[in-house]
């Protein structure tokens, strides 16, 4: 309460954050299996393709996956817990990507659990990385416990990944509430695995249905795409596949993060003339 202290510009709750340098963006979801890791890997590569310096951090300690999806599993020597516990320097745990020299991964430890790292450790690591990188992307574990809090603590921005199904949207809503409680803003939504034809038939939630509940803005819609799974299995994220629809979607999200104004993918909900008339009469 010192009266001599300067007011913090914009009323930012934590003036320590936002030291000059890169943006810390956390990718989270609440529910598991909606595509957090795939999204983190693809956004990392898409940003690296835009000549950005990017570091990815896997905070899913005990269930690490990001290294596999990035195809860097066999290069791991040190991990996040080794850094936190002082067994190595931060630099030593950073694995350089095979193709992009400005893209790095800090893998999670596999033999420990989430309690091996604290939110304060994450803030400290991210602050150490900020001066050197444009983007620090954090892959959050599923759930709302310690791992989630670790992932969210250093975030400047949060991306919430969800699928167009009710259970995933419920969990996203829970997560958004927790993010708001941490003063990390409402976050932006990535709607993953949307099937256009199912939306058109009214069998899947549309982007409008999802935003109706969540009331936050969508930064990207990623269509269901069969090339995603084999790409992840082979450690070559789908963003590198020029003809993949999901790849295009991830590249667009990266460009939007970078400040470009790119319209969202339009879901064709109108159908043909006959279907539209039928829908008017059925009240849909």
């Amino acid at each position, binding site marked *: 309460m010192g009266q001599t202290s300067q007011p913090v510009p914009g009323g930012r709750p934590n003036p320590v954050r936002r030291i000059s340098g890169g943006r810390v963006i956390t990718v989270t979801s609440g529910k598991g299996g909606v595509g957090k890791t795939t999204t983190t890997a693809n956004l990392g590569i898409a940003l690296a393709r835009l000549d950005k310096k990017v570091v990815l951090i896997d905070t899913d300690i005990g269930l690490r996956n990001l290294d596999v999806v990035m195809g860097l599993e066999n290069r791991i020597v040190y991990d996040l817990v080794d850094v936190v516990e002082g067994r190595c320097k931060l630099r030593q745990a950073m694995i350089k990507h095979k193709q992009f020299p400005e893209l790095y991964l800090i893998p999670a430890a596999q033999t420990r659990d989430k309690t091996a790292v604290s939110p304060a450790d994450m803030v400290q690591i991210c602050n150490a990385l900020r001066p050197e990188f444009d983007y620090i992307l954090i892959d959050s574990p599923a759930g709302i416990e310690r791992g989630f809090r670790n992932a969210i603590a250093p975030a400047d921005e949060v991306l919430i990944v969800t699928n167009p199904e009710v259970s995933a949207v*419920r*969990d996203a*809503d829970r997560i958004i*509430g*927790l993010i*708001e409680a941490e003063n990390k803003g409402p976050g932006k939504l990535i709607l993953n695995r949307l099937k256009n034809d199912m939306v058109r038939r009214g069998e899947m939630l549309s982007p409008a249905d999802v935003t109706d509940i969540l009331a936050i803005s969508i930064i990207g819609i990623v269509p269901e795409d069969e090339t995603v799974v084999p790409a992840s299995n082979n450690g070559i994220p789908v963003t590198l596949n020029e003809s993949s629809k999901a790849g295009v979607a991830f590249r667009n999200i990266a460009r939007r993060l970078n400040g470009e104004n790119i319209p969202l993918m339009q879901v064709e909900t109108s159908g043909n003339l006959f279907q539209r008339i039928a829908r008017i009469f059925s*009240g849909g």
Partner: protein
Amino acid sequence: MQEDTVAIKGIKDGLLITLSSTAEWPTITGDLAARIDEQGAFFQGATVTVEFGERPVSKHELSSLKALLDRRGMTLSVVLSDSATTLNAADALDVRTSTAAYTPGRTPNETLAKTPDAINPEEEGTEGVLIRRTVRNGRTVHSQGHVVILGDVNPGAEVVAGGDVIVWGKLRGNVHAGANGDETAVVCALDMTPTQLRIASYITTSPPGKRRRAKPEMAVVRDHQIIVEAWKE
């Protein structure tokens, strides 16, 4: 400067102590103790209403203030504040609360005394809380009074009120009005599709199927069941 940080005056049911909402907390408590001690045992046994204005007072600070009064034989009985933090702290310490605008002890002495028998134009009103955001999945709102929410109540959220619940938005979570047994409590929403709606000991769910169009509705208990009707005067 002492005069500005602490003001003590007599009201109908004891003492009203008004504390500056801007001065440093240690200054205020110091000044208050000094002011009371100046009077010797004069205030002993007094019931005290403390007005904090907009200052957020933590539970710890409030409990130390309560102890300060206790040591001098005075009882902290009511906390008047415009800050939710202070009101919560008072709740936690089981001290009666009120917002500063509504000061039951003071009004009769100061205003009504000058206009005897005049019809009081002031609506009596009752206490409530206002939540100015969407209540999301997993969040809860509990109040002994009414609850007004400017935003949606999403599925998985829970609102429990001793009085009425008004949702200026979509009501899709669980809501319980009249939770202490008040069957006259109502629930109003711009779009009434709660997961579960309770009034006093009655319980209902939204009818299945898609709604055609959202419209403001009000739920009340009538003939021992909850009915939902269009919201009009």
